[in-house]
């Protein structure tokens, strides 16, 4: 069913009893050409682009829990492409461009809101590094605008701009195309569109092992629903990449950390920009429901627990209140964490693995949500053709051996 204003009207006349589920819940078939492990944004996008761009059928997505229940549903919904190095700029801007057309592409409102992303400078050194950063973005063909102290104050009236502010704001820079998108809708939109093209999305199906052919290549998957034969397998499991890689018999340069976020009770519109202050560790935007969405830092020890520690929550809240004192009476409604896959250069790993016919999309660390369309596109390309997309070429696992790292300190805007 195509979603439209007319469909809504028709639904209203039928007392909304005419809606069908947005995707099927099929039993897995015994074999597929391509199986994708991980039903988050990246896995679902990969399945969609396999069907759409490469016109393949016989595709399955296996998800251990429910769709978008991992990091896709646990992030701060920010999209942006303000990266430093040309390789990253190309990849993330490709992603942002796909986001810009995504609601139409998927016939599903992902509620993209390009409200602008503002990074704050609190010291002369911050100003210098932001100038370098904005210039790098210009060089990479991505718009960025340096802001004076006065301009920041006009854009974000809620900021503490008083002379005795604990962290004085000296300036900043903005990417006006940055903003937010509804995270659940991204997963659901891709799932619905992939399902419509014949992709089988199988939830509550945990992968417990890999079946290998005599030549060492992956030929199937052991799951909680039994064995499924697969011609090629793609992994898109973020913080659990090392666990799946372990089952397949190789290691990754990944450490899993808990990254937490929280929302306050809803309030009237107060903040219409995404604000990040790397110096203090605050990362705030206001959701369409009115909640202040506050991104946390990492709990800096390896963790697979999907909850953040109170120590980090405390420092994140303190930082946020230091720059937005007027939020001090708000109550936090919810706090949660996702398990992120951090690699040493804060850049993704996209492509083949040491196991033939097994491909991976991981290493996005703290910044996977904004990369969903591009990550899915890249994984689909390599699964369909056996060759890397040109944008994915620099992001190979091999770079940790050759030493050609893409050290993207900007990867999340928060130091890690």
């Amino acid at each position, binding site marked *: 069913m195509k979603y439209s204003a007319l469909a809504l009207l028709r639904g209203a006349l039928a007392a909304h009893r005419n809606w069908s589920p947005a995707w099927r819940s099929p039993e897995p078939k015994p074999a597929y050409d391509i199986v994708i492990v991980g039903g988050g944004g990246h896995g679902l996008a990969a399945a969609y682009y396999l069907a759409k761009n490469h016109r393949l059928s016989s595709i399955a997505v296996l998800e251990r829990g429910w769709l978008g229940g991992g990091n896709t549903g646990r992030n701060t919904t920010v999209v942006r492409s303000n990266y430093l190095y040309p390789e990253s700029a190309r990849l993330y801007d490709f992603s942002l461009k796909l986001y810009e057309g995504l609601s139409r592409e998927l016939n599903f409102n992902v509620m993209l809101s390009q409200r602008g992303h503002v990074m704050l400078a609190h010291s002369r050194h911050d100003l210098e590094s932001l100038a370098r950063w904005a210039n790098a973005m210009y060089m990479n063909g991505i718009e960025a605008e340096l802001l004076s102290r006065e301009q920041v104050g006009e854009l974000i009236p809620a900021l503490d701009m008083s002379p005795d502010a604990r962290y004085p704001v000296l300036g900043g820079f903005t990417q006006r195309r940055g903003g937010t998108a509804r995270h659940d809708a991204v997963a659901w939109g891709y799932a619905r569109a992939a399902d419509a093209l014949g992709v089988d999305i199988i939830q509550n199906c945990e992968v417990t092992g890999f079946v290998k052919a005599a030549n060492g290549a992956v030929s199937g998957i052991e799951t909680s629903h039994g064995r499924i034969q697969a011609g090629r397998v793609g992994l898109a499991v973020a913080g659990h990449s090392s666990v799946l890689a372990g089952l397949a018999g190789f290691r990754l340069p990944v450490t899993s950390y808990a990254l937490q976020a929280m929302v306050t009770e809803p309030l009237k519109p107060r903040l219409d920009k995404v604000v990040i202050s790397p110096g203090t560790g605050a990362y705030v935007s206001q959701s369409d429901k009115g909640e202040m969405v506050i991104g946390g830092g990492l709990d800096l020890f*390896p*963790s697979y*627990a999907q909850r953040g520690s109170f120590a980090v929550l405390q420092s994140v809240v303190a930082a946020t209140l230091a720059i937005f004192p007027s939020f001090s009476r708000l109550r936090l409604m919810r706090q949660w964490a996702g398990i992120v896959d951090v690699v040493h250069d804060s850049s993704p790993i996209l492509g083949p693995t040491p196991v033939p016919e097994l491909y991976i999309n991981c290493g996005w660390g703290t910044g996977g949500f904004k990369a969903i369309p591009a990550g899915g596109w890249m994984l689909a390309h390599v699964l369909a053709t056996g060759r890397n997309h040109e944008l994915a070429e620099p992001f190979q696992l091999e770079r940790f051996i050759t030493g050609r790292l893409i050290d993207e300190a900007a990867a999340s805007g928060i130091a890690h």
Partner: protein
Amino acid sequence: MMQLRCPDCGPRDESEFTCGGTTHISRPDLNASDVAWAEYLFFRDNPQGVHFERWRHTYGCGSWFNLARHTVTHQVLAVYRMNESPPQLPNGVP
């Protein structure tokens, strides 16, 4: 908040400590291959389960020590000094 037991100072809050990552990794020979160096520098087991790791009591006595800690429950199963080898954990550890 986690509490860790520094071998010298006893139990303290997590915020006094810094995690130094996986412990018991030994540096390869200077003439080792690129693959061996990559394994040493970058590649990790990253287990979902018991992890042997180094911690430093940064805002306390400043000393380094080892922990065996479960990465899902965050339960600390053993604390031991830098020059000790990893302890045998009882069977049936979560």
